């Protein structure tokens, strides 16, 4: 088993922006064929980490390997292996869906069938529509199509479902499962604990540029229960586990507050309550 090359192997990664340390001695390993979730508050280093994996940022220290390839020194090879859906990236207003897809297909040595990709993402009817005229959901689906057009072995989704309605979120989840069933490895950066709990084989909880906890969702919940729970009775969710496992030590003095906030989180399914509680402490 040790001979198997991981899809993503990050060891002791460090990245700073000026004086701000974004990622500090962060290590994680993603096995091929799994859906790996990265959860954490804003500023925890999630996007910086995946940008290092995509070759968009040069690590200040440590190593990053995508299927054994260094994304910074061997850019071309690594980028052919990785399909990236980036946060806040747009396309040219007057570029049509079909043009964008065939343009991005031309960048890759192996290409997906663009017609089937359009159909799978429900964009066939919009193929001749210019980017500017697409709805928000269509733009999102096009960015997914562009991430998949090079037949990547590792697909990175950065906040795939942020801003989508519940039905669209579930469609995206099914797409992620389909990708895994086809043999791809999926790295999913998300704010939603329920999404990670339903979808991910492994989850890493990021906190202040490090991995605070990593494991299967059930394992993380068990660890949180063993550590004393969320401060109120009832079965824990991954959301509770996140709060418990990423709480600053000592956590005692605000465990009651964290418990109240978590019950709010149960209804909104948002991790932002975790930011609230850590913000309160600082």
């Amino acid at each position: 088993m040790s001979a198997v090359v991981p899809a993503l192997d990050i060891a002791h990664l460090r990245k700073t922006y000026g004086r701000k340390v974004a990622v500090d001695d962060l290590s994680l390993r993603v096995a091929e064929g799994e859906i790996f979730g990265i959860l954490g508050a804003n500023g925890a280093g999630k996007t910086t980490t995946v940008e290092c994996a995509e070759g968009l940022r040069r690590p200040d220290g440590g190593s990053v390997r995508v299927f054994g390839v260094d994304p910074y020194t061997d850019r071309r090879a690594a980028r052919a292996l990785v399909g990236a859906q980036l946060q806040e990236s747009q396309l040219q207003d007057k570029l049509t869906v079909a043009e964008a897809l065939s343009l991005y297909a031309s960048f890759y040595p192996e290409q997906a069938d663009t017609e089937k990709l359009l159909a799978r993402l429900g964009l066939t009817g919009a193929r001749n529509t210019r980017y500017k005229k697409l709805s928000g959901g269509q733009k999102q689906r096009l960015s997914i199509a562009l991430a998949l057009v090079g037949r990547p072995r590792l697909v990175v989704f950065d906040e795939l479902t942020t801003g989508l309605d519940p039905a669209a979120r579930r469609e995206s989840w099914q797409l992620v499962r389909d990708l895994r069933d086809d043999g791809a490895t999926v790295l999913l950066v998300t704010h939603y604990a329920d999404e990670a709990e339903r979808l991910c084989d492994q989850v890493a909880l990021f906190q202040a540029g490090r991995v605070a906890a990593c494991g299967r969702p059930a394992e993380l919940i068990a660890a949180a229960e063993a550590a004393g729970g969320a401060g109120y009775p009832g079965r824990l969710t991954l959301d509770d586990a996140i709060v418990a496992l990423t709480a600053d030590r000592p956590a005692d003095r605000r465990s009651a507050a964290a418990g109240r906030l978590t019950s709010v989180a149960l209804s909104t399914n948002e991790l932002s309550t975790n930011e609230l509680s850590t913000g309160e402490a600082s």
Partner: protein
Amino acid sequence: MTAALAEPISPTRDRRRSAFATLVRTEAILNVREIIPLLWGTGFPIALLVVMGAFSSGPDKSLGGFSLVASYEPILIAFSIATFALQGVPVVLAGYRERGILRRLNATPVGAGRLLGAQLTVCLAFTLVSVVGIVVVGRLAFGVALPGQPAGFCLAVVLAAAAMLGLGLLVAALARTGRVAGAAGTMLFLPLMFFAGLWTPQATMSAALRRIGDDTPLGAAVAALQHSMSGQWPSASGLAVLAGYAVVLGLLAWRFFRWE
């Protein structure tokens, strides 16, 4: 359902366009769809040439012995070069950076550097088409002689375009948004076009103004174009000024350019 994502197509080698060719084609299509810069860079100078031609009445001593239309032809060529390089390229590139398009391309095996190359290729192609258009319309409609020193003329056009593209890239490097790049491009365009002689041809400028003008990129460009059109080889100092601007501005742009 899932097969759609797994199934490869086998691209036959001859049918697969190279990434760069596809980028150039896409950028060209987008530039044509944008239409306004194209009207300014190609349509406007040719329209101005036609107006000049209509008012032109033989050689004029105050214009150095040229007819009005002949003396304006190099100025309009400079206008076209400067419009594409200074009002087109920076707006597009700064806009691409602002919208994360350069970043997105850097996440593909091809990289955003190739897009930069494609944008410059398209800009040069549009510039050359406009220059040829101006020369041909001048010849056919108003009998302006074709460049008497064609090699010198081509060199002057290429060096002028390189100098202006250096400036355009520097604007693209320093401007945070497409809007800022557009405003900066226009603010540079107007004084540069003054020294090119758009409002008062160089022949009618005072000696002091003309000396300053000779050291500006478009002043040097118009002088070099004028010389080569009347059959002389452009002055070495003029060509050196253009080459110097191209190298220095290009290096500065290289130094300050950011992908995101």
